[in-house]
């Protein structure tokens, strides 16, 4: 009886079932709070024509950026891709399609997708290029555009702690998009720093309830920092 034991022991098992052409929703903000081992596994499996939904696309040699090296990504839906030269190259040469999406709209698309809400109206982007071909509706005299929600075959998540039920706790700003992404995957896979005993996480401290989570794997993380900024210690 597996019951609610969602812990898997290999990355292969964690990403089992991922196919060419799938949509993968990834948590993370820049390189902060990204499922490093799950991304590496996708690279290893060599799955192609993926649609990736993530705030950013990593950097050239780390994070989601490594999936660009073997041209595994067909399309990316992101708010900011400025850190990645390889991405810009593939975009300009037409090898990859990009749908730049405002950050708040992206978060809401994931949230709504996971909550069974197919679309929503927002003032964000009205009158800008991203509003092209989108329905406009006025509420209380202000125009809003219709945005459609997002779900994916897979969601890949990074959390701090999980129990075998898939209950998750995130650490500091490594939370970012992870809780929304976790709700929007048909199969949600979480890579964590620590798997704790059942009951160790207090019910009221859980950020993401295990109902959204299908698989949990204990990873090890490099946690690369994009910009180390410090003040002198005096």
């Amino acid at each position, binding site marked *: 009886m597996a019951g609610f034991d969602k812990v898997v022991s290999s990355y292969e098992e964690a990403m089992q079932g991922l196919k060419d052409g799938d949509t993968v929703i990834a948590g993370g*903000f*820049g*390189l*902060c*709070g990204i499922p490093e081992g799950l991304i590496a596994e996708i690279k290893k499996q060599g799955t192609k024509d993926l649609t990736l939904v993530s*705030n950013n696309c990593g950097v050239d040699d780390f994070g989601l950026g490594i999936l660009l090296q073997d041209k595994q990504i067909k399309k990316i839906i*992101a*708010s*900011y*891709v*400025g*850190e990645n030269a390889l991405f*810009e190259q593939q*975009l300009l040469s037409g090898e990859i399609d*990009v749908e*730049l999406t*405002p*950050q*708040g*709209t*992206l*978060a*809401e698309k*994931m*949230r709504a997708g996971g909550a069974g809400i197919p679309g929503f109206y*927002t*003032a*964000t*982007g*009205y*009158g*800008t*290029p*991203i509003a092209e071909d989108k329905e406009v509706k006025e509420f209380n005299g202000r125009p809003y555009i219709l945005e459609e929600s997002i779900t994916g075959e897979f969601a890949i998540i990074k959390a*701090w702690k999980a129990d075998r039920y898939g209950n998750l706790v*995130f*650490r*500091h*700003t*490594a*939370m*970012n*998009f*992870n*809780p*929304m992404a976790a709700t929007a995957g048909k199969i949600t896979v979480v890579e964590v720093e620590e798997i704790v005993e059942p009951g160790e996480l207090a019910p009221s401290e859980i*950020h993401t309830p295990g109902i959204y989570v299908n698989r949990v794997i204990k990873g090890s993380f490099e*946690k*690369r*920092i*994009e*910009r*180390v*900024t*410090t*003040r*002198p*210690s005096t």
Partner: protein
Amino acid sequence: MALSREQVAKRVAQELQDGYYVNLGIGIPTLVANYVSDDIEVMLQSENGLLGMGQFPTEDKVDADMINAGKETVTASIGAAIFNSAESFAMIRGGHVDLTVLGAFEVDQNGSIASWMIPKKLIKGMGGAMDLVAGAQNIIVTMTHANKHGESKLLESCTLPLTGVNCVKKIVTDLAVLEVKGGAFYLLERAPGVPVDEIIEKTAGKLIIEGEIPEMTL
């Protein structure tokens, strides 16, 4: 003389009021945090999910899980809260953030702003800027008055792809402080030593000058 980046930030900091929740964009806006008066309490929002952004950490306190929207390592101030991206943008889109300060390529006399894309040249993405300009109660833009070719960035109508329409209320440039209302730029203050004529010459959009224009106090 035209203001330095630090002086622009210093002038913008005067716009912050006690009890404000403020989002500061990347570049000059980030510097504003260095000039907040000790007499007031403000809370800085970072859209990756931190309300109450503190100083940079000392070297021994650097934590990869603790960054700001510019992907720099930071600390949380006392009274801070950390939350997910949807919550962060609920604050922004729901109009709970009092003031947003951000940079721009162009602003026009109707308060529309272009800040995220130069076709065929710069395609990085808008990040949270479109949400911020659509949601904040008040928006201040900081930028140089003219580009490096001497062409005005305060226009009748923006030429670059827009970030938002009719949303900018105030602009602080290296030459002047201007208010945007009723389809025109109103000159409020000029940088010390900068003649009004220079501002007229470098403002392409409709500029309204009422009475004597005071110099900024820095």
